């Protein structure tokens, strides 16, 4: 059975709010079924939109026949890009590139791309009518594979259209004749020379598959256009970005666009940037009524996915087993629209060479356009794909050199005070400690039960770091009412990670009040100030600092108010009395504001080097013990150990569930999840055909731990943890499988078929294709 251990006790002293584990503030709403989600929201007079989607991967739209759909009783309107352009003349959006149209214009670029929308008061009518739309396409050659796409044989887009938001993408403007949306390069030392001098050189290629966030609350947005402005209700992880981008599309000031976000039924990076928000904006403007578009589970497979990747990695070692050089070529399959892919390419590119001390590093990281559903951020921002490759590779080298894999890692690991591949000096990074704790928990030094002939047992470890995305900004307000009660306004979206509770703990800590007494306002861009987005495990650190600063300003103003009304220093007069003394009745407010943006130095365009790539490192190690049934290829996870450095846990219980949940999600991506595509068409777009982890997939034993740490520049010593436990799961299991039965898999998922095929190939009895 799963044992979820450690993080016992926390670090709180009596009276502390940070370091204890109060239940989530919204817990009662969630267990009574009364928590509000966009997918179940309704507005009076609302119409439902159902999307008609492309059936070809790449083609010119010859015609769209909507006549039969319009004749269905109850259909209010059928909308195509022609109608959209009447209200939004340039309807292209995206965080990195303005490449994605609200509805397809002239061409379609993947199977499942939205082409038209039927509006009706009854969603069943809209759905039925959408099936009567007929589109004719002139099919064009399509490209699906990321490595082939790099060779430019078939072009997905004729010209690159960078958004201009990110300074380091501006040079791509107007670039033609390529599918490479971004090429990030890092050059350190001289790899060619080092390879020539190396005692041995190892080169391997690893691949990852296309997988899905699959939040149980599918994407949903409601647009409500009024003469005075536009309100969008949306399941969004980034309301501030949505507001900015919708205002840009409309040519409006930001203050006419309001984004309201209730609780999210899961996000995992999928509900970032623009998903349905631009569409419901256009639809609501066209019909001047509220319009809701809520996707089905199937439609999520056509919206945003994780990046499939190909990683060619080459490493040189000297005769003592020291790594002297590493060359990484990473190809990211971004699909038909860039979404945040170019940032994944660059930001994960920083750490492609792993948590090792290597003098000569060469990294090429390419974001590719292809004719498949777009890829974006998914819990790790590219890092799990990289760690899968470099930590499998590390094990392969260790085995070839006949060095214990743990020992080989310790010999080469990057330690605090040493320069990382980017040039930044490593600080506050306890990945080696995490690896040590994994080894201790696995009793690595002791003899290991290797099982029987047909049930082979093995074990493996992995270690990783991630540079948190930078630079980003967060703003928070703390407002104290005349009765002394405290409200926090911050744009961090609680999608299940418990941020509302953690932020309230920080307010409580500064103001010396119970966490449970702090109200956290639901995200509403009319009242909650700017935040870059709830992504990349950045919020606890960045928003945490903003919240801390806002609370500190409020605390200082309380002291000033006390002085103002003649209270002696250190008086413990209730706040309500202070307000009453000042304003003569229960009246007035104290407003504290906090803004936080860490320092950052952009990488040198030629070398990719920077002394300040990130304000903090996320550090992880994992260990797995597996049993492989050599007669079937079935892999059973007997034990999974996850250890992270997240600084000081603000809420130990929530940290534990983040570690556990992240690692179990990655377990699905490791063992069985895979979107199957046939000529660009997803052929398993449902939960019946795409399996995610369930109750029976939990490892027999699971242990989670956060090492004792204090992030010196973090709020209350903390840093983010939402993604950390995803990093190492895949390679730890692959390494354990190799240890158990000698087969090395280089492509995810590690399912029974893949293991069995590899076992048969190893025995010189390979299976055929069918």
């Amino acid at each position, binding site marked *: 059975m799963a044992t979820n251990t450690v993080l016992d006790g926390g670090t709180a002293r009596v009276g502390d709010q940070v370091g204890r584990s109060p239940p989530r503030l919204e817990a009662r709403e969630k267990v009574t079924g*009364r*928590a509000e989600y966009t997918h179940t929201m309704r507005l009076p007079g609302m119409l439902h939109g159902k999307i008609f989607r492309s059936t070809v991967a790449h083609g010119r739209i010859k015609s769209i026949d909507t006549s039969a759909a319009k004749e269905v009783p109850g259909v209010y309107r059928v909308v195509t890009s022609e109608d959209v352009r009447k209200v939004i003349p340039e309807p292209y959006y995206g965080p990195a590139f303005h490449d994605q149209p609200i509805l397809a214009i002239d061409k379609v670029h993947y199977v499942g791309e939205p082409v038209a929308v039927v509006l009706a008061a009854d969603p069943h009518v809209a759905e039925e009518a959408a099936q009567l739309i007929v589109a004719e396409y002139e099919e064009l050659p399509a490209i699906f594979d990321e490595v082939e796409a790099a060779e430019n044989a078939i072009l997905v887009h004729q010209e690159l259209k960078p958004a201009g938001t990110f300074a380091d993408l501006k040079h791509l403007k107007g670039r033609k004749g390529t599918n490479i949306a971004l090429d990030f390069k890092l050059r350190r030392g001289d790899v060619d020379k080092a390879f020539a001098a190396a005692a041995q050189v190892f080169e391997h290629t690893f691949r990852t598959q296309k997988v899905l966030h699959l*939040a*149980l609350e599918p994407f949903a947005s409601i647009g409500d256009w009024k003469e005075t402005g536009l309100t969008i209700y949306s399941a969004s992880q980034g309301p501030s970005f949505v507001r900015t981008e919708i205002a840009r599309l409309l040519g409006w000031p930001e203050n006419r666009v309001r984004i309201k976000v209730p609780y999210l039924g899961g996000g995992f990076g999928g509900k970032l940037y623009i998903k349905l928000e631009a569409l419901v904006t256009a639809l609501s403007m066209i019909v001047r009524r509220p319009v809701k578009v809520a996707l089905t589970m199937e439609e999520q497979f056509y919206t945003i996915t994780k990046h499939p990747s190909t990683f060619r990695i080459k490493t040189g070692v000297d005769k003592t087993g020291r790594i002297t050089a590493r060359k990484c070529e990473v190809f990211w399959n971004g699909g038909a629209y860039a979404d945040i892919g170019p940032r994944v390419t660059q930001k994960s590119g920083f750490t492609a060479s792993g948590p090792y001390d290597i003098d000569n590093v060469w990294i090429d990281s390419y974001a590719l356009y292809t004719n498949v559903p777009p890829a974006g951020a998914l819990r790790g921002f590219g890092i799990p794909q990289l760690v899968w490759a470099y930590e499998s590779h590390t094990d392969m080298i260790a085995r070839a050199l006949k060095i214990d894999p743990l020992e080989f890692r310790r010999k080469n690991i990057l330690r605090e005070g040493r320069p990382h591949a980017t040039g930044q000096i490593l600080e506050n990074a306890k990945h080696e400690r995490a690896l040590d704790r994994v080894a201790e928990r696995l009793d690595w030094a002791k003899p290991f039960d290797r099982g029987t002939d047909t049930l082979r047992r093995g074990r493996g470890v992995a270690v990783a770091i991630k540079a948190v995305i930078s630079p980003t900004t967060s703003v928070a307000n703390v407002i104290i009412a005349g009765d002394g009660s405290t409200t926090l306004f911050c744009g961090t979206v609680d999608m299940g990670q*418990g941020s509302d509770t953690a932020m309230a703990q920080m307010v409580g800590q500064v103001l010396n009040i119970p966490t449970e007494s702090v109200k956290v306002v639901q995200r509403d861009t009319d009242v909650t100030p700017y935040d870059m987005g709830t992504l990349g495990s950045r919020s606890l650190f960045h928003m945490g600092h903003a919240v801390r600063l806002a609370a500190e300003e409020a605390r200082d103003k309380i002291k000033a108010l006390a002085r103002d009304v003649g209270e002696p220093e250190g008086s413990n007069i209730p706040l309500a009395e202070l307000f009453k003394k000042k304003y003569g009745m229960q009246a007035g407010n104290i407003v504290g504001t906090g803004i936080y943006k860490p320092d950052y130095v952009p990488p040198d365009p030629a070398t990719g080097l920077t002394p300040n790539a990130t304000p903090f490192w996320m550090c992880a190690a994992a260990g797995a013990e597996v049993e492989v049934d050599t007669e079937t290829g079935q892999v059973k996870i007997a034990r999974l150990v996850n250890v992270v450095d997240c600084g000081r846990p603000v809420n130990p219980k929530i940290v534990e*569930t983040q570690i556990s949940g992240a690692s179990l999600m990655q377990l699905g991506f490791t063992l069985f999840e895979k979107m199957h595509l046939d000529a660009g068409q997803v052929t398993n777009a449902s939960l019946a055909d795409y399996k995610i982890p369930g109750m029976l997939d*939990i490892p027999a034993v699971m242990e989670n731990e956060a090492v004792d740490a204090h992030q010196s520049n973090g709020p209350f010593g903390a840093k983010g943890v939402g993604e950390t436990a995803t990093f190492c799961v895949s390679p730890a299991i692959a390494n354990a499988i190799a240890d158990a039965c000698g087969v090395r898999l280089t492509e995810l998922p590690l399912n029974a078929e893949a293991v069995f095929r590899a076992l048969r190939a190893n025995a010189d009895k390979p299976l055929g294709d069918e």
Partner: protein
Amino acid sequence: MTRTINFTLNGEPVAAEIKPHHNLVEVLQREFNLLGARESCGQGMCGCCTVLVNGTAVSGCLYLAAFVDGAEVTTVESLASGDTLSPVQEAFIEAGAFQCGYCTPGFILMTTQLLDAHPDPDDDQIRHYLSGNLCRCAAYPEIVNAAKLAARKRKAVTSG
């Protein structure tokens, strides 16, 4: 096309105008503003839409509303009485057995039914019984703990 159905909803007699293709979840949401049962996968695979019909859990997204004519329907909203949560709801909070909360009503109804059938379940019974409910946040270890805690709480209530 429309017809009227009469049924008992969380102990109260109710009526609703429905069409033959309406499923139970949409009728609960649209006609009664009960939003705890939610459609997610639409295929009966995830359990987010779990509703009890005559005491047995069904997938509300696949269950035609017409079929509840004359039946007793129970939703997650009936479990708490006033401010007092049910032992299962309390246990889910104390064990931290959810993150985003979208699947939680389904898990809570299934756990309630589990404990009706097996007042003192072991790990295997819990995992088997709840294997039809999915949680993408993967709060599974905590949910197993919550089920055990709820069993203890229910025993304390009956013996006390």
